[in-house]
């Protein structure tokens, strides 16, 4: 605390992952500042002290000085070794997940984060965690590259399709922390935001139990929750607003013009096809940007979503 | 470099001091270009090595679909054409206009033979549905032998490597025809044969690449 460059960093809410990073950040900044000011001072001093007095100025012949060359090669070299070593050990710490970490599954997709808990609880764009214990996120992507970044924990890792990557952190106070996607992933990349919500351990347990098993209620209610959990609303509104894709409002059983000029009635089969293979029949006036949900959603869930969509009029 | 007493021959450009400087420059330039070529193909070889290290069994399996006999024939054809190009340069150095023309013609012929064989190889594979990328649609018999989920990637690499190499062969043929036409007009002699020399270098590189492609793609048992 109380370092010169404190103003640059966000609050540190996960000391176990952030402390060494912050220390090194300050160290490099301060060491750099000293050398930088030295160089700039020397440069400006020489410019004034040795300014040209006449066109006939004679300058001495100084070709080189091996002692100096070695000095200003070796000292920075040693400094950078120190920086490398500290960066390496801090990074090892970020890589080494404590054995007792609580695991949460995270799936990134265009343009939301889907969170799955061990007991079937699901959320979208909200990671609920208890404070004071290490949390491990096991992450994958269902379309393109994303990157999971929580500035206040100093953790970041790319999220790749067909592979699992992970980060860990241990929040020490309750509250919210911002999550960003930092790997460019298309139109709404900058809206792919989420929050870590840190609870007291007992509150977290209550929350987890309440949400066990995923969507609940009537098929229509489950359909509504699925539309939220699957991130549909990042692109499709339910109130008629045009976002990236067509709104869900008032589409059921109506005619729809397609980009290829044909017209189609929006029925069960069209909705099913549009979820699984969105590129097949594009609505007129929209781009083909949705990633296929084939393999990410089952028929039962599709049926529930269709039931829900019928009700939005 | 300092030799200014010789007259400035017609084929020497204004910014060169003499014929030798021009020849050496052209040759150096060509070698630098070959460095490019090596790293250009290097990218493909790198992809090959990475995937082979990941899936050695895939490469053993998939190489069975490639015809070693015709691959070997093509190797011999290209080596032969390298030999004739070297002979063509020798002819030019010795002022043998006729020898130069004949050797260039044989080279062009061999290069065409290479492409024809390659064409039949491609044709056969496409017929079996072993096609690159989204055209990948192997017949049931092939699919039964080649039951590897990443088989499409091996052939993706195979097609990229051979097609880019084939493209170099085509460019080589075009250059060789250009040389032949100039040779017929008597442009080359022992004092000036730079284009023959540097095209020869290019052609040898095309041969070199194939020398590695052949065992890497065809000879995995």
């Amino acid at each position: 605390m109380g370092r010169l460059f404190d103003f640059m960093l966000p609050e540190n809410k996960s000391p176990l992952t952030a402390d060494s990073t912050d220390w090194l950040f300050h160290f490099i900044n301060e060491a750099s500042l000293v050398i930088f000011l030295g160089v700039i001072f020397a440069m400006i001093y020489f410019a004034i002290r040795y300014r040209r007095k006449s066109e006939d100025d004679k300058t001495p012949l100084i070709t080189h000085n091996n002692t100096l060359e070695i000095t200003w090669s070796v000292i920075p070299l040693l400094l950078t070794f120190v920086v490398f070593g500290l960066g390496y050990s801090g990074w090892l710490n970020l890589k080494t997940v404590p054995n007792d970490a609580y695991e949460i599954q995270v799936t990134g997709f265009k343009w939301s984060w889907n969170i799955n808990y061990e007991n079937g609880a699901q959320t979208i764009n909200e990671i609920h965690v208890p404070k004071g214990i290490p949390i491990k996120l096991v992450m994958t992507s269902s379309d393109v590259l994303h990157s999971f970044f929580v500035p206040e924990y100093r953790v970041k890792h790319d999220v790749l399709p067909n592979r699992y990557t992970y980060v860990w952190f241990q929040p020490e106070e309750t509250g919210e922390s911002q999550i960003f996607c930092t790997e460019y992933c298309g139109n709404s990349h900058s809206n792919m935001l989420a929050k870590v919500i840190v609870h007291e351990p007992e509150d977290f347990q209550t929350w987890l139990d309440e949400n066990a098993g995923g969507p609940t209620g009537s098929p229509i209610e489950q359909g509504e929750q699925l539309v939220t959990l699957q991130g549909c609303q990042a692109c499709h509104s339910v109130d008629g607003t045009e976002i990236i894709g067509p709104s869900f409002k008032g589409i059921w059983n109506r005619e729809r013009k397609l980009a290829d000029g044909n017209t189609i009635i929006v029925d069960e089969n069209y909705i099913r096809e549009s979820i699984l293979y969105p590129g097949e029949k594009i609505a007129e006036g929209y781009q083909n940007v949705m990633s296929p949900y084939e393999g990410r959603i089952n028929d039962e869930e599709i049926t529930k979503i269709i039931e829900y969509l019928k009700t939005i009029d | 470099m300092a030799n200014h007493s010789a007259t400035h021959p017609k084929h020497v450009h204004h910014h060169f001091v003499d014929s030798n400087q021009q020849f050496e420059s052209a040759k150096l330039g060509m070698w630098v270009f070959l460095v490019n070529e090596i790293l250009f193909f290097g990218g493909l070889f790198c992809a090959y090595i990475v995937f082979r290290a990941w899936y050695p069994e895939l490469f053993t399996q998939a190489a069975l679909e490639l015809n070693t006999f015709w691959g070997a024939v093509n190797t011999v054809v290209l080596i032969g054409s390298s030999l004739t190009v070297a002979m063509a340069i020798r002819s030019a150095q010795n002022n043998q206009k006729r020898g130069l023309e004949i050797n260039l013609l044989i080279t062009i012929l061999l290069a065409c033979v290479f492409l024809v064989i390659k064409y039949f190889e491609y044709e056969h594979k496409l017929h079996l549905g072993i096609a690159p990328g989204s055209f990948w649609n192997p017949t049931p018999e092939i699919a039964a032998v080649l039951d590897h989920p990443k088989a499409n990637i091996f052939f993706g690499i195979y097609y990229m490597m051979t097609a880019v190499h084939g493209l170099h062969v085509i460019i080589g043929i075009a250059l060789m025809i250009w040389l032949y036409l100039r040779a017929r007009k008597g442009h080359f002699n022992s004092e000036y044969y730079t284009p023959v020399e540097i095209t020869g270098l290019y052609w040898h590189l095309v041969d070199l690449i194939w020398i590695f492609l052949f065992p890497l793609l065809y000879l995995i048992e």
Partner: protein
Amino acid sequence: MASLSKAVNTVQMTPKKLKVKRFVPLENPTNTYLTDEKGIWAWLTTVDHKKIGLMYLGAVAFFFALAGFLAIALRTELWTPAKTFIEADTYNQLFTLHGAMMVFFVLVPSIPAALGNFILPMQLGAKDVAFPRLNLASFYIYAFGAIFTFLSLANNGFDTGWTFYTPYSSDTNSAGIIWVTLGVFILGFSSILTGTNFITTIHKLRAPGISWDRLPLNVWALYATSIIQVLATPVLAITILLLAMENILDIGIFDPALGGDPVLYQHFFWFYSHPAVYIMIVPGFGIISEVITTFSKKTIFGYWAIALSSLAIAFIGFLVWGHHMFTSGQSAVATTIFSFLTFLVGIPTGIKIFNWVATLYRGSILMKTPMIYVFIFIFLFSIGGFTGIMLGALSVDIHLHDTYYVVAHFHYVMMGGTLIALLAGLHYWWPKMTGKMYNEPLAKFAAVLIFVGFNVTFLPQFIMGAQGMPRRYYNYIDQFTPFHQTSTIGSYILAVGFLVILFYLAHSLIKGQKAGPNPWNSRGLEWQSTSPPDFHNFSHTPVVIHGPYDYHQPMEEFQLGLAVDHEYGDEQDEVAAEAHASLDTETTEA
């Protein structure tokens, strides 16, 4: 003055003795490369390296203005956290285009192909580059590449970022990506041809006496650059070809949905694109060395340290590409080794800066515009370098990767480094290229505007980046608003600075004062010709007996040429040579 001295010196050079005499460049040349052939057609078909260099300079300036205009649009859009005046799709396409144009159309060709083309043969005392026609071809290939890139805009554009990461780029349905990859592929050839040409020229076309230890540091820098161009660019070509095939044919090498590996794409891409950073900055180092000696009137401090550090940077630059991939999912072993090697590349860069500052010691320092840009360069580039150390440190990079901190870092290096060096070189060689002087007070004013505007634009980006602001964001959360607004204001100041430069350079072309052959009293060989130079650069074959920075030697000994009749070249040549001989008043013992 008028005596026709036929006295001739003999300089001992291996393997044979050369007769040399002094050639004083004409104050008012009547026959220059600009008057040699006239008309637009003569320009478009010229094989003269000087004209090609100028054409490149014009093209680079055009693309810089265009990409700079895009930057202003982007900064304006970021004035508010949500939409200010353009849609997300447009924004994404604009930042992609800004990046791609700045990298491929501006920074890569800027110094080598524009200034380098003009200056390199002159510094070597050559009449042209080794392959003048290839040189012209490289310009047209560059133009074709640009056309293809713009055709992509007519085909839905592309919004992948200039890095074209798979699978986003290979899955996109926009045809624009095909056109732009084709464009970049073609541009690569232009870069390769320039590099090939320079390497050959430096090896084979040096004037008598220019041994490797008398090569100007600018030439050393361009030599190192050319090596990188030749070794790295073909890998970009094959990468971009594979990417296009991935998009068109789905060959599956990079696309995880087809079994491929997106991280492999990143290896391929950065194998070129990291060394490409050195393609952009190393020529800048060359310019700094030239300018700093001229305006200190002093021998460079640590000639070999600076020359060899360029080569060291070129070599080590090939070993560090993975530091762009610390969060990508590459293996831990690779990450560790890449981080370690990354620090090694910082050392030769530091050595250069220390040597430049040491050169100032006990010099005779004249703060003309080029020298002011050198000071700005050292200031901004040092910040870029130190923040590079920050990003090389593994744990810190995890936090800073893909944030505005990185954006600010590479702008400090690329714009604060390369572009400022380009401005230094442009002002330094402007009298040589055009024969005219520019308005010095206005030029200094513009330099100050650019310095202030630059820092106002990019310093806040370090802070918001460290605070967590990710790059390539169209919307942002409210807490970053003040930083973004400061940055936007800074970008406007920068733009005004560049407009001032445009104004006084245009004015100089029309009404500038005559510069004379050597307005800075430099010892560099390129200054021992007329301004502007004649078609063959020199009316004689220059002979060099001193290093390019030997300010302790008299000027006369830098104006030597072969004292033999011109038996080659056209007749104009001989006339010009005789005209010079008649001005020859004295000779010096060498």
